[in-house]
């Protein structure tokens, strides 16, 4: 048994070294990601390869750029939805957007936007509330491939049923079907939804402030970071928000445990909507 526990320790050392190698060679820094989650992903990559150990993965990654991009792809596989957590969108509509409506121009930042579902949901909401025409949306992610997908705004039709459901629960004013048209087994979102969205590459770990915004939406990204990295990113958010700006996190994320908790006030506790202090 001792030697098996030893295996776990060796594995943890190997993972530490692998993450360091990735950072030194390719500049992607996963060292302060949630370790349990990163480990799961790395072991999945290992399981799908013909390699035996994590050290072998490291060797291959250093010498094979293609293998690295396969791994990177796997490290950021995710799932997202339009209008995920409908109650959050409902609160935005009823409580938060009215406060923004008096601004002459609204700037918002979706950090870690993945394939865009969340960004387009917001665009629909802003349209229905008559605010979209004066809004600029910066949608960023560190995954370049996924950003290309987000720009296309094409989704499999089998998702439409649950999106339509979510849309209704989120207090949608129109018919969700007005926002897309179907072609074969895909749904294409209405072009006008894209007008004021700028998709761009930004790494929350290694890139800094790029503009000052009225609202930051970063949902289910920080759960992948450890507390130190969360602290670093909360500082980045605090520096990027204008006074009284809004911060929206995922339903199980919190600034409460961060050293920067004093930078933000609870606004809607259940929905994790904060306001910069």
């Amino acid at each position, binding site marked *: 048994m001792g030697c098996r526990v030893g295996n776990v320790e060796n594995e943890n050392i190997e993972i530490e070294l692998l993450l360091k190698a990735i950072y030194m060679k390719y500049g992607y820094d996963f060292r302060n990601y949630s370790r349990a*989650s990163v480990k*799961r992903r790395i072991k999945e990559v290992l399981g799908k390869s013909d390699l035996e150990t994590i050290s072998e993965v490291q060797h291959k990654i250093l010498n094979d750029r293609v293998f690295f991009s396969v791994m990177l792809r796997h490290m950021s596989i995710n799932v997202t939805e339009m209008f995920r957590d409908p109650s959050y969108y409902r609160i935005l509509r009823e409580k938060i957007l009215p406060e923004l409506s008096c601004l002459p121009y609204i700037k918002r930042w979706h950090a870690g936007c993945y394939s865009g579902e969340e960004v387009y949901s917001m665009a629909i909401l802003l349209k229905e509330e008559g605010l979209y025409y004066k809004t600029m949306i910066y949608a960023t992610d560190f995954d370049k491939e996924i950003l290309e997908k987000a720009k296309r705004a094409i989704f499999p039709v089998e998702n439409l049923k649950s999106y339509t459901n979510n849309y209704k629960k989120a207090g949608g004013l129109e018919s969700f079907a007005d926002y897309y048209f179907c072609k074969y087994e895909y749904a294409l979102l209405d072009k006008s939804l894209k007008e004021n969205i700028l998709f761009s590459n930004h790494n929350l770990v290694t890139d800094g402030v790029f503009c000052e915004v009225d609202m930051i939406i970063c949902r289910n990204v920080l759960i992948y970071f450890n507390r130190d990295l969360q602290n670093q990113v909360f500082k980045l958010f605090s520096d990027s928000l204008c006074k009284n700006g809004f911060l929206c996190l995922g339903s199980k994320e919190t600034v409460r445990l961060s050293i920067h908790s004093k930078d933000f006030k609870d606004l809607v506790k259940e929905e994790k909507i904060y306001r910069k202090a």
Partner: protein
Amino acid sequence: MNHAFLETDKTYDAIVIGASAGGLDALRVILNQLPGDFVIPILIVLHRGKEKTLFFKRYFVDFCSSDIIEPEDKEAVKAGCIYFAPPDYHMMVEMDKTLSLSVDPPVNWSRPSIDVLFESAAEVYKEKLVGVILTGANKDGSVGFEKIKRLGGLLVVQDPATATASKMPRVAIEAVAVDCILTLHDIGVLLSGLIKS
């Protein structure tokens, strides 16, 4: 009930429990029996719907006096508390004994998944972990069970003959040499014995 494995004075640092179909009632039976002043954390994955279930906490509150928590990300694991993985998130234990949540794809068609919790907890608590699998109609948990076993933890399974859905405990028993197969009541008795200081 065979208490042989309890006769050593081995102590445990945490208990993980996985339950699926019929699990809410099964957990009630077990948690109801626990003493109010227990000294280690209990981490639970119960497969259930996506909805935010506020009623859910209330369901247990009448039955046990300890803290029932649906944790937020990176919350520290505290002794004497019972943690339920939130609906639609995986829950994992980190080496520093905080909890990480994730929206990674479902494992065994489940999110939260029992395997995801068990495997991460096994690495942290090693031989000081008790794993429990209760009623369920799928095979979630058995991979995590193997890992707990490999790292020296104790494995407890609900007797499939007494389970609302027998598949999950049965698959676990077939996959690994478990330490004991018990009724819900006896699991309650066993765990009560393990968690008193």
